[in-house]
């Protein structure tokens, strides 16, 4: 009985985390389309519900009732597994995100490594989907995304090292608390910019949406998917984008900490601040989608390997030497 009560308690905690994440993913899709529309002087989805808020719900309902088509020449087990992998990986990463000093599902001491590991596993959903479809366009999309995500992961890893040098801990709460006096976005501003662009590439967002470049590859790795399986890819993709935004907010924008430490602002719950920061980054993501044209593939590779990687490596050396010579290295 003791075990059972512990299990139930944990399941409740997980549900209280996952249900809001899934709902906010649906809302964020609406926000994305709205921002995109406003940049182009359109209205965007505004029919279903107030301001079109229920648009995503209507879409989800439509996907649920559509037929799931599995191509006869596909590799069936992997074909079905691919969207599940994408979705699961996008959701399990939320376990370590701290919403306040105490509101965190798993306060593990290698939190940032866990986040990095899970986000680097995200590529498997795409490769599996692309390969198992047994069709040219999905395969090309999968190959593209494999190369792209591996390349940009490297620079994200080096940027994380920059932050870790200033913090001295791999725990996400420690990273947030280390920004008490100054958000890392100020001293590490170039790294924040590179992180933002790498996050765009890591989540296959425009201008780096080459794995699903509709002008070239129909819909890339999702071409053969339909109905609920397509919707799962779609949900997983947006959950991943929110996750990268959360990672950016924690690493550079002070996570759950309130920006101004005076009376009326301290009343606002910590979780609200984190959500606002995530939304800010997400609106930036949406704006980039509306503004920037798609990169060519060789330009994408050049940017990742020849510009971002050397720049972030040089910045690691700079940060380390600055901290060393001014005796600012965190000691615990």
């Amino acid at each position, binding site marked *: 009985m003791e*075990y059972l009560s512990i299990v139930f308690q944990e399941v409740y905690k997980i549900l209280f985390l996952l249900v809001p994440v899934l709902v906010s993913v649906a809302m964020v899709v609406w926000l994305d389309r709205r921002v995109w529309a406003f940049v182009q002087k359109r209205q965007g989805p505004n029919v279903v519900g107030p301001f079109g808020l229920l648009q995503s719900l209507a879409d989800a309902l439509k996907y649920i009732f559509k037929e799931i088509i599995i191509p006869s020449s596909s590799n069936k087990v*992997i074909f079905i597994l691919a969207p599940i992998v994408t979705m699961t990986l996008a959701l399990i990463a939320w376990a370590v995100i701290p919403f306040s000093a105490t509101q965190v599902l798993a306060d593990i*001491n290698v939190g940032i490594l866990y986040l990095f590991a899970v986000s*680097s596993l995200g590529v498997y959903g795409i490769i599996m989907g692309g390969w198992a479809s047994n069709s040219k366009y999905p395969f090309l999309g999968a190959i593209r995304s*494999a190369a792209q995500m*591996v390349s940009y*992961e490297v620079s994200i890893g080096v940027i994380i090292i920059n932050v870790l040098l200033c913090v001295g801990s791999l725990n996400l709460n420690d990273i947030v608390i280390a920004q008490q006096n100054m958000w890392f976005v100020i001293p590490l501003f170039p790294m924040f910019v590179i992180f933002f662009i790498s996050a765009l590439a890591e989540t296959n967002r425009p201008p780096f949406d080459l794995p699903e470049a509709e002008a070239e590859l129909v819909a890339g790795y999702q071409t053969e998917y339909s109905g609920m399986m397509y919707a799962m890819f779609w949900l997983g993709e947006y959950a991943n984008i929110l996750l990268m935004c959360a990672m950016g907010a924690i690493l550079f924008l002070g996570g759950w900490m309130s920006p101004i430490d005076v009376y009326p602002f301290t009343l606002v719950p910590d979780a609200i601040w984190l959500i606002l920061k995530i939304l800010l980054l997400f609106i930036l993501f949406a704006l980039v989608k509306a503004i920037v044209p798609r990169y060519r593939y060789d330009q994408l590779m050049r940017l990742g390997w020849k510009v971002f990687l050397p720049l972030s490596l040089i910045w690691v050396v700079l940060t380390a030497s600055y901290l060393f010579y001014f005796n600012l290295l965190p000691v615990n």
Partner: protein
Amino acid sequence: MIAHAIFFYTFSIIAVISAIMVTASKNTVHSVFFLILDFISISCLFIMIGAEFLGMIMLIVYVGAVAVLFLFVVMMLNVAQQKNQWFAGQQSSKHIPIGLIISTLIFFEIIIVIGGWKYKPEIFDINNSISQTSISNTHSLGQILYTDYIHVFQISGMILLVAMVGAIVLTFRQRSGVKRQSYIKQISRERAEGVEVLEVQSNKGVKIDD
């Protein structure tokens, strides 16, 4: 303790079965997927014994990067059919002696390592002394790696660098006739060299020199 045992046996059974399936499955891409499953379950085992840094690095390096490139190569080369031919052909028995020699070598190496613990228990104590203290596994790893073993660490880094340079040198070939984009050239182009206005005489045309 029961929950611990359940998790341990689950992960180790998955690890062993997927390791067998890596060699047993006929489709090469499936083999790589089983290899990935093996890596993941082994990193779970690492985390269970408290080596969380090692487990996470295993996930990031092997599953996140190495296996992706592996999969990439296997998919591109389409080795699946070749492997089927090996299985179908009779000459597959030729590989058995080599495989046997290598596996016995590895087996004896493992026996020597485990035997070392058995007959020299103090070695085990020295290695274990760090994990007894209150600091976390990641901290203790950092403290020992950058102090006592700094030279070994640097040398292994150098070996990796040499391997990387070697791989690049071996596969590098200068291709002729490839048009490359030069950003500096593009940006520094002036109007004068881009456009030329010519007086064209009728019935004569212009000669465009390139």
